[in-house]
């Protein structure tokens, strides 16, 4: 089914089974995730640096650099910016930056970081209020605990901030939620949260549009 190698009748039968067979659904989902990861790791526009007779080599190096930086931040909690994200946040040099748009990334389940994230978002929205600032708090791995009803110690603060700033958004990574669900952990989110298929994809897509990225 994942490779489109079955007949229409077989597909219908399998679709019926997927409803009642979570293990089968998880298997299918895993295969699709692997396909996504492979396509992410081997982009069609990827070209070797210094390749003979191929155009766009610089583009590949740049894209790989972005992926590497973002991935490093996601995996290791690494941060380029600790103070003013507009001054020090990470953004693509090749893209015209839009300084009023900021991504705050959170990958750890740490209440102190939860509060630091909200405070940073509040400061940004307050300080640059007149510039139409837009802030996305993007969470994955342990960071989604910020937005899970069962784990968030700051649900009230999130609600208050969201009521005050319409241009503040909270995003949880669906890949992380999927894995939590597989482990039987509750994944109900606060009402202010949105879900993106992949936090990495979400961040990379916006970096390409000129957003500034800050890891907390």
């Amino acid at each position, binding site marked *: 089914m994942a*490779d489109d*190698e079955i007949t229409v009748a077989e597909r219908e039968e399998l679709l019926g089974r997927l409803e009642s067979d979570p293990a089968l659904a998880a298997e299918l989902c*895993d*295969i699709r*995730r*692997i*396909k996504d*990861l*492979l*396509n*992410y*790791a*081997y*982009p*069609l*526009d*990827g*070209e*070797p*640096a210094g*390749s*003979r*007779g*191929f155009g766009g080599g610089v583009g590949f190096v740049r894209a*790989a650099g972005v*992926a*590497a930086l*973002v*991935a*490093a931040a*996601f*995996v*290791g909690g690494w941060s380029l910016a600790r103070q003013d994200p507009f001054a020090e946040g990470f953004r693509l040099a090749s893209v015209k930056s839009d300084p009023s748009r900021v991504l705050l990334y959170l*990958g*750890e*389940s740490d209440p102190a970081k939860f509060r630091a994230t909200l405070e940073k978002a509040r400061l940004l929205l307050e300080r640059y209020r007149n510039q139409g600032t837009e802030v996305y708090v993007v969470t*994955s*791995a*342990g960071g989604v605990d910020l937005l899970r009803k*069962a*784990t968030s110690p700051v649900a009230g603060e999130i609600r208050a901030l969201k009521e005050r700033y319409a241009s503040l958004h909270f995003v949880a990574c669906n*890949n*992380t939620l999927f*894995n*939590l669900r597989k*482990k*039987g*952990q*509750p994944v109900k989110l606060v009402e202010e949260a949105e879900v993106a298929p992949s936090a*990495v994809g979400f961040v990379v897509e916006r970096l390409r549009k000129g957003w500034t990225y800050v890891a907390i």
Partner: protein
Amino acid sequence: MIDFCISLTLKRRFREQRKRLFRMALAWTGDSMLADDLTQECLARAWEKRHHLQEAAKLEAWLFRILHNCWMEHLRRSRPTTGLDEVPPAEEDGPDQRLERLQLAQRVRGAVARLPLGQREVITLVDLEGCRYAEVAEILEIPLGTVMSRLSRARRALKAELLHLRLPEEERRPLLRRVK
């Protein structure tokens, strides 16, 4: 005149396939310079043999088959007595490599590189190129059943590696937690 037009069309179609051939060669070899060489060699050989192309609609599969043959010849030249599934995976556990493994794309490529060569070819043709199983069997000149078994083993191996990839924090956390 007609031959000239056909040649021009074919040349354009070859050019259009270049990136896809390179990507596939990179996934198979893990080495961008070698992948570049194989792509060049594949296209040159395909151009020489363009009159052997029976059906224009099957150009892509035909090119991938030539690419596979170029890769096999390269392996035979460098490892004359080594079987396909015996080609050792890339070693990558030095300090620099450990740093690289932290990077998402690198980690995926590392996992692909650790697959036996036969499995690597099958899963990349299916998942990157969207080839049908029958096409893969034709390209690699292996039975359909072998395509499916290699694909299944490759997916099992990648699943084991890649599902750990994004969850270093979660894996260390207890499954049960106190929730008020």
